[in-house]
């Protein structure tokens, strides 16, 4: 370890726009050794704040606090929504600080205790926050070694740490624990020269499998989600909603509702909340509210949206281009054109949006199921014209997010209602509200034209993505002439995407991987080649070749002389958040009913260094299982602003009987930085199943999801 320079002075004016003073932090958490640090690396996702927005603090962006009993508290703005970072972050801290894992306590998603963070999304925690945290832990260890050196009168470079005990190997009697160093002190340390982090190979916990550390409280009902909280005097709110998204409140009469015992109705502009200490009564009172809305006439529906997207006056932003595409097509022996339609999808996590808001004296506290506590804090402070340090957002356990808990509408509603009524207010959305106000996965259209020469090499690739972004559209294969173009609304043109859209697990990548891999498969068929051999022939990226071969080995894939082979085996690869995946699936199809069942799916994943292979495997399996929904059943049906699917009765999620045998291999790369693990395996499932349907029957489907009706229709066409 490099000799580090440290200083103990408190930097003045540290609060900035973060909203909390360091001295306030001490008031809140008591004494001990607190280390503020400024981990910085080139992969920092948000090095500069957008105008008017916050960014990583300049002086420190994480805290560690070591208690007198040796407990290491780690404060992070990230939140736990099931993805298991509550465990993998502990592994990282334990290794870099040389303490047992059980000594580490994660404090997450509390804007008052934790430093600023942009939000928990994009599989960022381990790949971006992780390296920062490792540097932080190394710095913390540096400070503790320095304190120990002073106490033991031994140079820091001579000291060793095992399980939170610092000692001199030449004189093992000379030792001191982290806790003893923290005892009776309020020490604040601030390091500005970074010690190097140790090599991954030296680690005890990183790279090994551990089970979740929150399972025990989640199986007893003890774990608290936002909707489980209660405050004295708290009222439940049920909110008046229009029948469809375009509704504007014209008139409202809530005199009858107010006759329900204990009911108060409050209105703030369009927001009408029916409040009662009893949620059921609040719901009954809401039914007595008479309201009239005006609705805009919107003609588009879930069937006509695709045509509307293609016909819209769009931009054409060329995102990637190489070679000469026209010259490339001239070299082609066969050219294939494909158009794919992908619908809107709901997030449909089981925990509905909830928020509890309380104004107390001059302070607002909001507990919320949210992936973005700090942006919520910003929004609340702005709405109520309050300083940031008077607004606290706390995120308890979150019951699934997948990108859908970033808008925080329910939290704003709870806070406004609490402000008007003067009491703490709990908002828990109904499932119908969830479907109405979701930020859906974007519907999109892909138009792909590409061709191969006589030897089966792809020579030209012209790819257009309409309204669905281009994440995951990377060419992956070695194609000399290619162009990837994104089409969006031109400024001041009417919205085609009438539903609110936002990130949905691996945003847009499901669409783009589907498009590329169906097209690749069509080219393989045109070349009369086995789809594995065709892919390997056109790949140059060694990491992808290794990943695909690993999947093929695990599957026991035997190339077929003809394609389609009739076996019902599909292949697809993709990249997301730096991670590579290759999947091979085997399906069976009932040609009478059009029902498709995935029997087996194999997935190989190269995610660089994998901190917790068990946790990553669970994420991978979760991705594949969730993907069965967008593959077979999920599709938001709507007519204008009216969402037709408003509950699980018609919006069908994957069930136990759908889940195939899932086999996976994580290619552990201890020498590589970690990449994302929460999303990649979801991206290839639509393509792998579509390609397997083709392999079984020779029929192609170009519209998601593959419902039995669509499968039958495709079979008819042949």
């Amino acid at each position, binding site marked *: 370890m490099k000799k580090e320079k440290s200083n103990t002075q408190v930097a003045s004016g540290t609060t900035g726009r973060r909203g909390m003073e360091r001295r306030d932090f001490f008031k809140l958490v008591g004494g001990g050794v607190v280390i503020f640090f400024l981990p910085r690396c080139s992969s920092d996702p948000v090095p500069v704040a957008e105008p008017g927005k916050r960014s990583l603090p300049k002086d420190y962006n994480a805290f560690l606090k070591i208690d007198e009993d040796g407990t290491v508290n780690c404060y992070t703005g990230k939140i736990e929504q*099931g993805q298991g970072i509550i465990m993998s972050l502990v592994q990282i801290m334990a290794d870099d600080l040389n303490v047992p894992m059980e000594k580490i306590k994660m404090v997450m998603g509390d804007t008052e205790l934790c430093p600023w963070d942009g939000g928990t999304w994009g599989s960022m925690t381990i790949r971006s926050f992780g390296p920062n945290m490792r540097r932080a832990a190394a710095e913390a260890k540096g400070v503790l070694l320095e304190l120990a050196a002073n106490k033991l009168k031994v140079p820091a470079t001579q000291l060793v740490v095992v399980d939170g005990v610092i000692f001199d190997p030449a004189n093992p009697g000379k030792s001191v624990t982290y806790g003893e160093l923290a005892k009776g002190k309020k020490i604040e340390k601030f390091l500005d020269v970074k010690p190097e982090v140790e090599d991954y190979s030296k680690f005890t916990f990183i790279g090994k499998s551990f089970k979740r550390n929150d399972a025990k409280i989640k199986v*007893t009902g003890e774990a608290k989600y936002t909707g489980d909280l*209660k405050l004295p005097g708290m009222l439940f709110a049920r909110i008046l909603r229009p029948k469809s998204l375009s509704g504007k409140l014209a008139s409202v009469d809530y005199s009858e509702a107010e006759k329900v015992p204990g009911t108060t109705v409050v209105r703030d502009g369009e927001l009408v909340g029916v409040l009662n200490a009893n949620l*059921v009564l609040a719901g009954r009172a809401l039914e007595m509210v008479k309201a009239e809305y005006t609705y805009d006439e919107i003609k588009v529906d879930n069937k006509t949206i695709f045509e509307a997207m293609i016909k819209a006056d769009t931009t054409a932003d060329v995102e990637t281009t190489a070679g000469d595409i026209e010259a490339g097509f001239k070299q082609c022996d066969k050219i294939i054109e494909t158009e794919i339609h992908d619908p809107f999808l709901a997030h449909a996590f*089981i925990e509905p949006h909830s928020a509890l808001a309380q104004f107390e004296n001059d302070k607002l506290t909001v507990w919320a199921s949210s992936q973005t506590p700090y942006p919520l804090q910003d929004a609340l402070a702005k709405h109520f014209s309050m300083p940031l340090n008077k607004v606290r957002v706390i995120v308890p356990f979150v019951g699934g997010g997948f990108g859908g808990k970033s808008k925080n509408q329910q939290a704003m509603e709870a806070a406004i209602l609490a402000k008007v009524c003067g009491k703490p207010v709990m908002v828990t959305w109904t499932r119908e509200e969830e479907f109405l106000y979701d930020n859906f996965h974007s519907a999109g259209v892909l138009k792909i034209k590409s061709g191969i020469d006589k030897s089966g090499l792809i020579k030209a690739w012209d790819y257009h993505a309409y309204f669905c972004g281009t994440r995951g559209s990377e060419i992956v294969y070695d194609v000399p002439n290619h162009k990837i173009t994104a089409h969006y609304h031109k400024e001041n043109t009417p919205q085609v995407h009438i539903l609110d859209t936002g990130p949905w697990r691996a945003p847009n990548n499901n669409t783009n991987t589907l498009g590329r891999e169906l097209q690749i498969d069509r080219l393989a068929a045109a070349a009369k080649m086995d789809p594995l051999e065709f892919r390997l022939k056109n790949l140059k990226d060694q990491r992808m070749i290794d990943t695909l071969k690993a999947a093929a080995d695990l599957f026991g894939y035997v190339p077929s002389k003809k394609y389609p082979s009739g076996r019902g085996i599909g292949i697809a690869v993709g990249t997301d958040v730096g991670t590579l995946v290759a999947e091979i699936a085997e399906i069976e199809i009932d040609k009478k009913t059009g029902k498709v069942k995935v029997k087996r799916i194999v997935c190989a994943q190269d995610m660089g260094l994998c901190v917790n292979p068990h946790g990553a495997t669970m994420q991978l399996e979760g991705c594949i*299982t*969730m993907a069965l929904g967008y593959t077979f059943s999920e599709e938001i049906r709507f007519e204008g602003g009216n969402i037709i699917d408003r509950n699980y009765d018609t919006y069908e*999620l994957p069930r*136990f009987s759908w889940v195939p045998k899932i086999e996976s291999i994580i290619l552990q790369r201890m020498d590589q930085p970690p990449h994302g693990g929460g999303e990649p395996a979801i991206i290839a499932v639509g393509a792998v199943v579509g390609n397997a349907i083709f392999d079984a029957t020779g029929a192609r489907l170009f519209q998601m999801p593959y419902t039995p009706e669509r499968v039958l229709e495709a079979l008819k066409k042949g």
Partner: protein
Amino acid sequence: MEETISFQLNGKQTEIKIDPTQTLLWVLRNDLGLTGTKFGCGIGFCGSCTVLLDNEPVRSCSISVGEVKGKSVVTIEGLAKDGELHPVQKAFVEHDALQCGFCTPGMIMNAAGLLIKNPSITRDEIKAGMEDNLCRCGAHIHIIDAVETAAKEMRGGK
């Protein structure tokens, strides 16, 4: 109109003065402070509100508190005995049969009910019995493994 409803709740005789048409789920959560039982969909389709009513798994969002009069209700909080986790709970921890954990109480109660009814349950029967409980995170395989392990333990390792 309020009336006094008596029933067994997690093994204890319980009386509550309440409008009997109120939904059992919300009475458990808000009046009796048992928030382990979760609200998911409100129409009995997701199973996150599952409790045992006279040992039978039921959707507490779809029945009224009046309907449990004189009966026995067990919620996730009442499953462990004397600090010892129920075999299904233990197996869920052992198999990491959860991610976000929100569907977990309903999954566990449904599984516990299945095992009371059919201690010699097969893996296929477990799948069929769990079919109507939804999990969005995709912990399905681990859940089936866990229920199978619990069934085995409850049969004395056979």
